């Protein structure tokens, strides 16, 4: 079970939840599960975002493995730009 934290403006697409729990073994499965449970999140996911898993920003790499236990903490971050 991954605890996925949504940034504030995404929460309205997930019934106001700050944290959504999903069963997933990879980043790709997290995104698919989020979109299935809350279709309103689809455009933001498709627009591109960054993902932090247990503190490590691993980019939006769908193949990246997620530790299969209840403590794993995932943050969705807006895709960052730099100057």
């Amino acid at each position, binding site marked *: 079970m991954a605890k996925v*934290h949504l*940034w*504030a403006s995404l929460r309205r697409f997930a019934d106001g939840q700050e944290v959504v729990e999903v069963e997933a073994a990879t980043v790709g499965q997290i995104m698919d599960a989020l979109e299935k449970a809350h279709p309103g999140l689809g455009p933001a996911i498709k627009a591109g975002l960054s993902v*932090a898993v*247990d*503190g*490590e*920003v*691993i*980019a*939006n*790499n769908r193949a*990246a493995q997620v530790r299969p236990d209840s403590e794993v*903490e995932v*943050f969705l*971050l*807006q895709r*960052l*730009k*730099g*100057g």
Partner: protein
Amino acid sequence: MSRSEVLRATGPTASASMDVKIGMKKDGTITAGQIFFRMQGGAFPGMSPIGEALPCAFACYDIPALKHEAVEVIANRPKAAAYRAPGSPMAAFAVESMVDEMCRELKLDPIEVRLKNGAKNGSKSSYGPIYTMIGLQETLEAAKAHPNYAIPLGPNQGRGVASGFWFNHGGETSVSLAVGEDGTATVMIGTPDIGGSRASIGLMVAETLGIPYEDVRVNVVETGALGVNEPTHGSRATFASGKAAVEAARQAIAEMCRRAAADWGIDADAVEWKDGAAHPAGPNAGKHPPMTIGEIGAKMGSTGGPISGHHEVTAGGYGASFGTHVVDVEVDPETGRTTVIRYLVVQDAGTAIHPAYVEGQYQGGAAQGIGWALNEEYVYGTDGRLQNPVFLDYRIPVASDLPMIDTVIIEVPNPGHPYGVRGVGETGITPPLPAIAAAIAGATGARIRSLPCTPPKVLAAIKALRG
């Protein structure tokens, strides 16, 4: 494009105004923080870096209660463009100015307050994830210990301290490496070099292959020569292209070990690579003299063909870079002119692959930030047209405006990179804005709450204080 066309049409950073509120106990403990941002990035939504400004605002602190809010303002102005650490300098100006003001009010040392409340390993960042390995505390300790922090100040002089942050970035990255017949290596990257990344990547490849730096050439190649590459942005070039180049070198090493193994008639697993040559991995692999990259390269045509390595990745594992700046200024009480008399940059590079280029990035970031703090401003007329589209009127700092900018490179290696690289290009522009405003407050007693701190503005603030 002419200079004036560049200034008119290519986009400044966004304009911003913000309100910040911080709760601090008398002992300097910060209990809560709140920021409200307004950012204008031109006529189209999404052009301002509001999404970066908010997470940067309190990134240097470990504060139990935070609230971030923002609105983007649409106006008939040129579109904003990405500008070194987009959003972070404005956020730092707000938060670090407020922290400085509270320190002065409570008569607390600004570095001690930051050491007390600053983010450290295991802190929950203001934007969510836990910081696993960061170097903010080390920058603060080094700034505190630096001789500049102890130099007595003269009349009309003030000292300012501020910390700053940038996330850094990885992104889509593609690199190729080819071994030459003479034992040299050519690396092809897609991130243009704007601050020393070619030399740094060359050093990392040389280290990985075990050959002299002089035997590695790094070329920035045309778009079609590689897979997709994001441009050089986000302080990512040395981190991401370097990470991919190391992986490409490892691929080439694996192939060179296979060539040596075939020549020796042993299993490829029984060959190891060190000091630029293939070696038998142990006594069971038999007695074979080392086969150098030059020897393998010279006969590659008859042993299986060209030897190269490629790596394509959306690079993750990037690590934030924190910095702390200390600046001394002297303010002329008759004119309001501010002169920077001493400047110190302390920043965590992860690992400084090429220290001189890292130092150059620190100094360049500080100089650009000093320009923003003291002079640089787009001035628009009532008709919405830019009034100062040449460098005569848009004043950037030149060498004669600045003292030698002292640097201290902190190295807390990033675990997400094979050599610990973080990325150093952007953090340096962040602290100068609040540090200089704090130093002016120290020199004059006047707190400047909008930038730039031009002589007329500073003089007016001094006169207002005098009544």
